[in-house]
């Protein structure tokens, strides 16, 4: 059925965009959390000295 490809295209677009957005955000979030941990350690060392 020709129309099936339209249906597929629409849903594919939705899923791809949503997926990409979520992946990008999660990666950034995790990187940020790591950075916070590092900075926290840095601060503790600062305060110890």
């Amino acid at each position, binding site marked *: 059925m020709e129309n099936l490809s339209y249906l597929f295209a629409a849903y594919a677009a939705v899923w791809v965009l949503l997926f990409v957005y979520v992946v990008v*955000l999660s990666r950034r979030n995790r990187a940020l959390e790591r950075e916070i941990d590092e900075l926290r350690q840095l601060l503790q060392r600062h305060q110890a000295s």
Partner: protein
Amino acid sequence: MSSNRRLIDLILAPLAGLGMLLAIYMVFIYVPSDQAQGIVQRIFYFHVPLAIMTFLAFGVVAVASVMFLWQGTRFWDRLAHSAAEVGMLFCTLVLITGPIWARPVWGTWWTWDARLTTTLILWLIYAAYLMMRTVSGPGDQGARYAAILGIVGAVDIPIINRSVYWWRTIHPAVLVTREGSSGLNDPRMQATLGFCFVAFFLLFVWLVWVRNENARLRDAVEGMRQHVLTGHEA
């Protein structure tokens, strides 16, 4: 504090995911095909909730903008920014799924009907909003200017919708059909639409949450960097 956040995270993600999974089931397996439009009509079950969510998102942007200008706390600015990004994403999806649906059903990619056109303009306003933050000067400027745009935009959207609607109805052109109003007679269709609405709402909330966390973490990192550099309380 962070344990509450962990909890919300733990609940929202699977809830949204489950919602979407069920939505897919309902759209592809449960609901019957539309008699007139055939299988393509199923796009409708995603297209409409996405559209409602993107306008809702802009509402959130507007309220958060007012609160930000009034209260000045970072919380409101982060919320506005997050809602705007997710709203923009949803708006893009509406503008993609709309034409893909229109083409086989009405034979044309684009119709200048009131709803689709208003969504297009909303997209442009979202784009301007997000761009505003990148091109503004240092400090709070970007946030403030974006907030102004958020408020003016939100007030304008109903007016824009009205004017485009009048523009169309006084000059009947290519298509006079209103999209999506082909009677949802079958209660299964109504149920599917309703459920998709809930599923997308959950998705929206979760995405805004994740994006907001991103903003909050960024602010925290910035704060800590200042702390490290200056050596005393930021």
